[in-house]
């Protein structure tokens, strides 16, 4: 990598929380509307997001560019690391390796997921209103359900453990005690955000969303 890797790494770290970490939490909460309020609640959530001003700019500068930079630079960071969990079987060392593995899984998952949902809307194969039915088709297929479950858990672990690392990398949690307490909080974040996504996946797979689904139009669109 050209330039000063200190600045690239700092930017990588910052983007992981702002905006990407913020995005994943908001995304989890929106999806959770599917569990809490059913198809209408979810549709409302989608509608709310689509009514935001300057949405295309928000998407480009708030999601796509940060994701591309963090994701591609993250792959390079992962490539630069060894894994020595065989020799050093410590929890934090496992988390170090897991951070890199989940980063790679998240990379693949996010592109696939965006292809199945947002890209289909750009291509005109789907409308925002049909997203609930698309998700129903995905979540009611056992194979897709398991793949989504893995993708979602990997992404949320990556975010939660990344939050812990972020606090160290910026010198916010310095001593062992502060780092231990922050690890409990980040574990809590992992459990809560994972629950949001898993419950919404379950809700998407349910009959409510099936009825709302217009199977004939949506089925051909998921790949």
């Amino acid at each position: 990598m050209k330039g000063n890797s200190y600045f690239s790494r700092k930017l990588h770290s910052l983007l992981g929380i702002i905006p990407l970490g913020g995005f994943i939490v908001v995304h989890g909460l929106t999806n959770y509307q599917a569990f809490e309020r059913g198809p209408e609640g979810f549709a409302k959530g989608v509608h709310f997001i689509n009514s935001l001003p300057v949405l295309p700019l928000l998407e480009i500068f708030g999601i796509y560019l940060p994701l591309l930079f963090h994701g591609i630079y993250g792959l390079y960071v992962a490539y630069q690391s060894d894994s020595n969990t065989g020799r050093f079987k410590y929890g934090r060392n496992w988390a170090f390796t897991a951070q890199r593995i989940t980063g790679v899984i998240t990379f693949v998952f996010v592109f696939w997921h965006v292809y199945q949902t947002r890209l289909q809307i750009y291509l005109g194969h789907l409308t925002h209103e049909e997203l609930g039915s698309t998700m129903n088709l995905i979540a009611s297929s056992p194979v897709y359900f398991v793949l989504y479950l893995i993708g979602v858990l990997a992404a949320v672990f990556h975010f939660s453990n990344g939050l812990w690392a972020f606090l160290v990398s910026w010198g916010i949690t310095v001593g062992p005690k502060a780092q231990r307490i922050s690890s409990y909080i980040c574990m809590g974040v992992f459990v809560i955000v994972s629950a949001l996504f898993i419950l919404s996946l379950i809700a998407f797979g349910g009959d409510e969303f099936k009825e709302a689904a217009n199977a004939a139009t949506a089925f051909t669109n998921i790949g």
Partner: protein
Amino acid sequence: MADTTVATKTVKFIITRQDTPDSKPYTEEFEIPYRPNMNVISGLMEIQRNPKKTDGSNTAPVCWDSNCLEEVCGACSMVINGKPRQACSALVDKLEQPIRLEPMRTFPVVRDLVINRERMFGALKRVKAWIPIDGTYDLGPGPRMAETKRQWAYELSKCMTCGVCLEACPNVNDRNSFIGPAAISQVRLFNAHPTGEMNKEERLDALMTDGGIEGCGNSQNCVRSCPKGIPLTTSIAAINKDTTKHLFKKWLGM
């Protein structure tokens, strides 16, 4: 009775050897007579006296580095039963047998267990891990250090540049230019010193370039491996804080 058991007891070693810096490593097995209170170095000395492998055939004596023999110089660092540590403080009675010895491959292997730790000293030079006091006239005594600060700074000063923390770090390898935990902790030490503090920005700047502090990925193996119990991860996080502050100060032109 003790005498008869001692006479027949042996110690088994499996040693990874390498004849030249570029040749392929191979292992050899040794079985030597046991003596009470042996450490790994005295085992290696026995092999040097009588360089015969377990199968009875002759071999070249095994090469290693050592100096102080009291865990303060770091020269004898090697991988013993999978963990990097000092051979002089590795007591045979406390080790599982066969005892496996390997060089710390994070560093260039010179021969057998001898490695070149030059990068450790290069890192200290890079971060200016010293206090510049030389001048053309006597500058007089510097400011005093608070006792509370001296106490934790003393812990950091115990570093013997052994390289164990770099061997344990998954981010110190051929694909990565990370400087390693030891030098970062030394920046904290010299920046804590009342006179050293006068040059603290220079040391922070050195860690804010390629291969600096950003190479840390928080595996925290270093703090669990350091033979001197140096709080390396606390040092790294503290310097993360200082470099972050320094970064914003520079941006704001302060």
